[in-house]
């Protein structure tokens, strides 16, 4: 069994590196709660390169317009065909914003139409239990962005497998802190991140 390496996707447009603290924070959570053999640092992987095939899960985020180049689109399509999973989080948590508009258009063109993921999907029960679906984020509750508390995540599925998981909840802000800060939290808000990783590795 190989070591799990958390990969952040780099794309040509926009600000792909807007949440640099999310990878170490989730790596820390994976080590805290599971026996998954996880690498201590994440990697940045160019979405147009063949390196993507080394990683079962790729995390993508940003605020600015999100567009694939032709090479990125083709590579991501092959990556998804081969069983990879893309987790795209809108750092704006904003369904009317530039990232949402461009990302959903691009992902539809690349992988297929996004639709609401039912809140009883196994993503919400595969490790920690989230009976009400995706946990709310403080940025949603703050009323920033579109001032909505999103009840569902969106996804492109193939059969019963999630290929692309799209979040408008801004987990990139929610989980964007140094992992050592976690000890001050009454409730660890990265638990859902562990679910995403466990799901990606075992779906």
């Amino acid at each position, binding site marked *: 069994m190989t070591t799990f390496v958390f990969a952040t996707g780099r794309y*040509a*447009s*926009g600000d792909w590196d807007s949440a640099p603290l999310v990878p170490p924070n989730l790596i*820390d959570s994976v080590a805290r709660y599971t026996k998954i053999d996880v690498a201590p640092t994440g990697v940045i992987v160019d979405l147009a390169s063949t390196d993507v095939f080394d990683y079962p899960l790729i995390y993508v985020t940003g*605020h600015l*317009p999100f567009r694939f180049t*032709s090479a990125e689109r083709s590579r991501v399509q092959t990556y998804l065909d081969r*069983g990879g999973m893309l987790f795209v989080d809108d750092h704006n948590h904003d369904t009317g914003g*530039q990232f949402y508009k461009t990302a959903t258009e691009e992902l539809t063109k690349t992988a297929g139409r996004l639709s609401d993921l039912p809140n009883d999907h196994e993503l919400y029960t595969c490790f920690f239990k989230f009976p009400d679906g995706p946990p709310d984020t403080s940025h949603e509750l703050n009323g920033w962005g579109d001032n909505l508390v999103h009840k569902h995540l969106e996804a492109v599925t193939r059969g019963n497998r999630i290929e692309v998981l799209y979040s408008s909840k801004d987990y990139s802000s929610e989980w964007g802190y140094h992992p050592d800060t976690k000890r001050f939290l009454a409730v660890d808000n990265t638990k859902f991140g562990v679910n995403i990783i466990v799901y990606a590795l075992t779906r």
Partner: protein
Amino acid sequence: MRLGEAIAAVRRVRAALATIIVVQGLLAGAAVGVLVASVRGGEVVAVAVGLLAAAGVVWRSRAVFSLEGAALWVEERDRALQYALVTAVDPRYRGHRAPAYEGALLRRAALRAIGSALGALVLAIGIRTLAITHRGMRFDRARAATAPGRERPVSRLTPLVAHVAPPAYSHVPGRDVREPTSIASLVGTMVTLRGPGDTAGLRASVGARALSVVADGDTHWQAAVSMPATATVVRLSDRGTDRLVVLSPIPDAPPTVELVAPARDSTMRAAHGTVPLVARASDDIGLADGYFEVIVSAGEEETGGVQGHTFTIARTSFHDVRSASLGGGLALDSLRLNPGDVVSIRAVARDGNTVSGPGVGTSDTRTLRVATKEEYDSIAVEGAPPPGADSSYMSQRLIVLATQDLLRRMGRRPPVARDTVVKFARRLGEREQRLKDKVYTLLYGGDQGGGEAMPVAERVLFDTAYHAMNDASMSLAIAEARGALPRELVALAALDSVRKMQHRLYLRGQPPTIVVNTARVRMTGTERPDAGPRTPAVPTDSVSRRLARQLAVIGRLPVVAIGDSLALMQVAAYGVSPALAAALGDAATATRGGQDPTPAMARARRMLAGPVRVDTGRTAWVSP
């Protein structure tokens, strides 16, 4: 002759006659069967008809199987007996003297009956031999007509010539490929296969789709197919003989575009002047046009989200050149940018692909940002906890959501029990009470006095929120959720207004490199998961494994038998790796050309096996 002797003699005659008739019947049946087989019908039909004929012959002569019948048969052939023999064997006339008769009668009868049947059989065999000979001659004539050098070849699938005509936009001239095994060309290329002979019974297909085979003059046929986007195989069939031709599409790569200027992302103090834009583009076939695409993004996520508009500038036609430069300028003044706005610029080029395109290539995106005033003199800023207004707003919003949820549950049928409503509302009231106390602390300080210094306008809003929270908590304490909600919303709106009056500063810089000490934190989490064991995911890409299995199987077969299999594997391999497909194609070509395919097959085998993996002995991970 005595009576006893006469009866014994008639019995011998009867036995002899029975034997003769059976033999005659068998011979006659055989003759009929051979005739039937010669004219039409299979072996089963011929045997059945022959048996029927044999039975008929025996049935026709059934009278001789009785003693009287046998005696009469002798009497008919020897009139001198004057019915003495019949009378002798008749029980009514026993005691009379039995006449003598000649055994030569039997020999003549046997000769006549068996001889005629034997003659019929010989005649039938003769006819049968003639029929077979005639068919053989027809078959030989047909073979001779299709032999090389004659008017019709043995197979109309050879010699085969493919005319390959790439799409017009590529400006590549057409070419002929003789005896093609695999044809590689641009998507949309028209491939015309041409061979000798007429079109009768000739079939061509691509997958399940039949191709139209038409006559090319009086002496040749042809079938045309357009090069598809994915590799496939053309199957030509002629009288049970197949021939495969692999179509290997060469995709038209989209243009490659490099944005030369601006060279890097920038932050501007003021958005004035013109930004020079320069890009280089190249394409494997030819460029059609290019332009710069600009997106102006404005706003912040806290204040209504990031909005923007897109436009293009400096659109230029390239007239099918393979490489070109694109230039222009972006007048910033015309954009009327405000502090915090972001301009995203990229260059776009399109090729002239009119078949599956146009292919669109894009450069990296550069961003130009207009700085906000707060950024001018900031060098290092320590992270601070969230402002009091922020955390209060979040908590108040949670209370509002919970109250709305409680009201929804109360409105359902059947309604939630009153005790539950009271318990839930009181819990919410306690939370509202605690939040109200926090706001009070912000305003007036704690036991030691104090309180935050804040502008009067903010203080007024906090005060409004405080009183609204107080009203809401009292309503919730008596389970009046409907009365509490409006006051909760007033508090929420007041806190939101406070937040909007406060200024925030966001800085981006080099993020720290964090190496997680996974060994130290391993399994120290305080939260408890609730899940059973799960099995690791397997890649869905099974084509490689299937090809590896197939390659292992055909590696054990004779070389002459694996050409078509390798061609089909080549088509499947295009979805995995073009290099693997090329190796399998080389193996197929070598096989068809009578050469050794082993090196190419070994190359394919190595590609399928992948890099050598070393087992590190690590324990497989499992969920707790």
